């Protein structure tokens, strides 16, 4: 049986269940946060672009774009589908620094800042981080299996790995 794949775009979030896969491609400095409830077998994924909504200069912003708003929104979406926050575990990937510069200003190290804010947001709701593959300088495509909770990470340099 072919598995259904739910696609998550940039600055987007979604959930998958019933054995479907959920996937997002081309994570650079963006961070892909996944949450998984192994009892309800519900998987959620957010493709987070920026660390905090405090820097938003738009009046009505997209919650999935910022770490501090995307994680609560993702939890809400999963709970609506029947998952429980007490059973959720997190895995994350991305947050790379795609270009190495001699002069490092703050916006250039957006990847590590995204990772830090995601960790903080998860800590605030007491969701444990089971695995991560973050930082370094390469892009990643990630896929979470809602049947098993296994996160598959693909990159150009290192091929496929599972966490």
């Amino acid at each position, binding site marked *: 049986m072919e598995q259904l794949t739910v696609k998550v*775009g*940039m*600055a*987007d979030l979604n959930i998958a269940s019933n054995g479907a896969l959920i996937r997002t*491609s*081309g*994570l*650079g*400095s*963006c961070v892909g946060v996944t949450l998984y409830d192994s009892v309800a077998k519900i998987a959620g994924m957010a493709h987070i*672009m*920026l660390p905090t909504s405090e*820097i*938003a*200069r*738009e009046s009505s912003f*997209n919650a999935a*774009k910022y770490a501090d708003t995307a994680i609560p929104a993702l939890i809400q979406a999963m709970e609506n589908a029947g998952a429980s926050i007490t059973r959720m575990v997190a895995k994350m990937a991305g947050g*790379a620094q*795609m*270009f*190495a*510069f*001699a*002069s490092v200003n703050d*916006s250039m190290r*957006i990847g590590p800042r995204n990772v830090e804010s995601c960790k903080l947001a998860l800590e605030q709701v007491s969701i444990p981080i089971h695995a991560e593959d973050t930082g370094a*300088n*390469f*892009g*990643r*495509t990630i896929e979470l299996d809602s049947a098993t909770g296994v996160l598959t990470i693909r990159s*150009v340099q290192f091929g496929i790995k599972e966490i």
Partner: protein
Amino acid sequence: MNDFKGLGAFKLDVLKEVGNIGAGNAATALSRLLDKPVDMAVPKVKLLPFEEIADIVGGPEQIVIAVFLRVEGDAPGNMFFIIEEPSAKRMMHQLLSFATSEQADYSEMELSALCEIGNILGGSYLSSLADFTGLSMMPTVPAIATDMAGAILSYGLLQFGEMGDSALLIETAFLEGRDMLEGHFFLIPDPGSFNKIFQALGVTSE
């Protein structure tokens, strides 16, 4: 000014001309460097959702080589020179007299040469723009990466991310005769730079 959807057809044409002048000079520079004629397509100016930007170069997972230059000065922005892999190898072959390796990865020498090509092209793009607009625009030292297009391009969209879910970019494709050397130039001015460019060119906001 937060809403680029409000840009009229006239202003889009002005931006297209900006792309035309910049890329025209860069194409000339590339042609001199390779000693071959280089054609370029009519520039495209688009307001695209983040999702669709990587599709221009073959989707978010397409492996590309990108030289990134941050533009500083009066009208800051991000600039990418993106080459597809086979084209990059061919360009290396024409430029460096030694045979290029057939492997998928690049030697330090090859990367450094590609980075320099990006630097020369980016520099000629920007200096012609600076002459044309009278604004100061300086490229920073270039950086190079080979990776998925989505991962690379998203880096140039962060400034737009703070104020919306789409970006306005000026894109020009290069073709080199039958060899099909394919390259793309992306100029993604920061959201605040558009008004400066318009003002410098005497385009009044109605």
